[in-house]
């Protein structure tokens, strides 16, 4: 019983900020008070019409679409290679593919900034996209690897014995059976890319900046609850996406939490 209370208290701590943000987003005035004096949607209106947010949202769309679109095939190929093919030193490649997760964001960000300047690409989105692909790749590879590991190699042999050429085996048997992993990978890729902040802060300009960076700039300069409204929208979208991810590929398995009867 005590244990349950402790867990509930901690869960409360974890969810408190979310609750506060949602409440604040409906606050009628710029000065926050609790309980709020009324409910208003003006900050939502402000958030949705603010030009820099709009531009940043479009940028986010472009960058996320491009990086997910690249990361998915690259990551899937790598996952297949690591699980199925006799590549030497698979442990090393595995570690290296997960390495972007551990590099400090400021180090990667500054590094990409310097690289972009050296290549004269400061105003170009390409470096930002490349950085996102790198940051998203570990998630993609992990998700697909789970699916590949669960794939019975005998199925591919059966397909070959029935006359299917290697490419046809991949297309008709392997790929369809990888669908759950690919879906999860896409989900992760989108979530991570949309929320990526630190590296993007370094590598983007005001023209190319993505949504989190625009939000950061806003928060530093203004104190009204527009940010709360935008955050609430973000939170709502994220919950939906995470819920879907758990439905389609049991997240416990991805994070290697064994289910005990």
């Amino acid at each position, binding site marked *: 019983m005590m244990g349950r209370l402790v867990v509930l208290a901690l869960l409360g701590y974890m969810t408190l900020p979310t609750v506060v943000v949602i409440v604040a987003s409906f606050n009628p005035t710029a000065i926050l008070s609790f309980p709020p004096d009324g409910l208003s949607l003006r900050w939502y209106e402000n958030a949705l019409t603010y030009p820099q947010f709009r531009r940043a949202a479009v940028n986010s769309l472009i960058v996320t679409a491009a990086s997910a679109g690249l990361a998915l095939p690259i990551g899937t190929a790598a996952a297949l290679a690591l699980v199925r093919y006799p590549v030497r030193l698979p442990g090393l490649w595995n570690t290296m593919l997960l390495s972007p997760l551990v590099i400090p964001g400021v180090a990667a960000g500054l590094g990409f900034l310097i690289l972009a300047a050296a290549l004269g690409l400061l105003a170009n989105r390409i470096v930002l996209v490349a950085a996102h692909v790198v940051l998203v790749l570990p998630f993609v590879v992990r998700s697909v690897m789970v699916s590949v590991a669960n794939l*019975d190699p*005998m*199925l591919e*042999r*059966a*397909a*070959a*014995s*029935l*006359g*299917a*050429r*290697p490419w*046809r*085996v991949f297309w*008709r*048997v392997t790929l*369809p*059976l990888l669908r759950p992993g690919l879906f999860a990978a896409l989900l992760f890729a989108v979530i991570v890319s949309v929320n990526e902040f630190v590296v993007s802060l370094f590598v983007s300009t005001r023209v190319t900046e993505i949504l989190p960076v625009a939000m950061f700039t806003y928060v530093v300069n203004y104190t009204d609850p527009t940010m709360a409204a935008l955050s609430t929208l973000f939170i709502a979208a994220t919950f939906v996406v995470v819920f879907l991810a758990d439905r389609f590929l049991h997240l416990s398995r991805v994070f290697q939490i064994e289910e005990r009867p």
Partner: protein
Amino acid sequence: MSGKAVVVLEAVTKAYGRTRALDGIDLAVYDGELLALLGPSGCGKTSTLNVVAGFVEPDAGRVRLDGQDVTRQPAWRRGLGVVFQSYALFPHMTVSDNVAFGLRERGATRDEIQARVVEALALVRLPAAGAMRPSQLSGGMQQRVALARALVIRPRVLLLDEPLAALDRKLREEMRAELREIQRAVGITTVFVTHDQHEALGLSDRVAVMNAGRIEHLGTPREVYERPATAFVADFMGASTVLDARAVDGSTVELVGGQRVEARLGRSLVPGATVRLLIRPERVELGEAGANVLPARVASAMFLGDHWEVRLELDGGVRLLATVRGSAALGAGDRVTVTLPPDAFLEVTR
């Protein structure tokens, strides 16, 4: 059966690391026959199948199908039908789509596919299963779908990897008979792998008994059982008693315990030579019934339903295993008489 060799393996060798999975396999499978590859785990029977199928390339030797050298040809070119031990039915396709897979890869028309799938499912007696998914089928049904899928493409050879191993005993016995019927009906050359000697004996036209990467005996079921080439084969085909003896004259030997028995081995023995004999437990008879009547003591007796498994001891410490039918109760310590028919002995040279 036309007597033509459909599958030929010449001196096929395959090693994994330092272990030789296949150590010089020479094998010919004739048109229309059902050949069993029999042996314990690790003997190389599945590796042999994999080489024929093209899943594994041999280190040395040749594989021929219908006279054509296919050693380097990939699996998808060989036109064989394979039924895997785990069935390997595509979980994301219906039964019909599974069966139709090979036909689609060959570019058959939709009507043709439909007709042949229906035909194949009827052959394995699952006419109504078309729309179901593999996960909804029992083990026996899955196996039949796997068979239909392999047969529908009209392969020149059917390869089965332990097809009945995953089924429970009763189902296994039913499927054994059905498999044989289907093979006979279709007339297709078949090679199947098993570790169960009853299965091999019951189903096949010929058996290749394998051990440590080599074929120790290739012959008809009766040959392999009644005149095994080596001690390993004799032992693998069924439990038996090994008796070391010394020849006294052309057809008599003396056992370790001093007993003299007549042994008709189809050849004249050299007096003084040592011989190694085998006698199957079902040939050891209790009671007096002819030549070679000896006194014995029951060391232990186990009642197994339709027969007793009796361990007997003759004078001088000679041990004998006997299978006794009937309900007469036997207990340890009982004194009995045994008869060893002279033609029941097998000689083992290796």
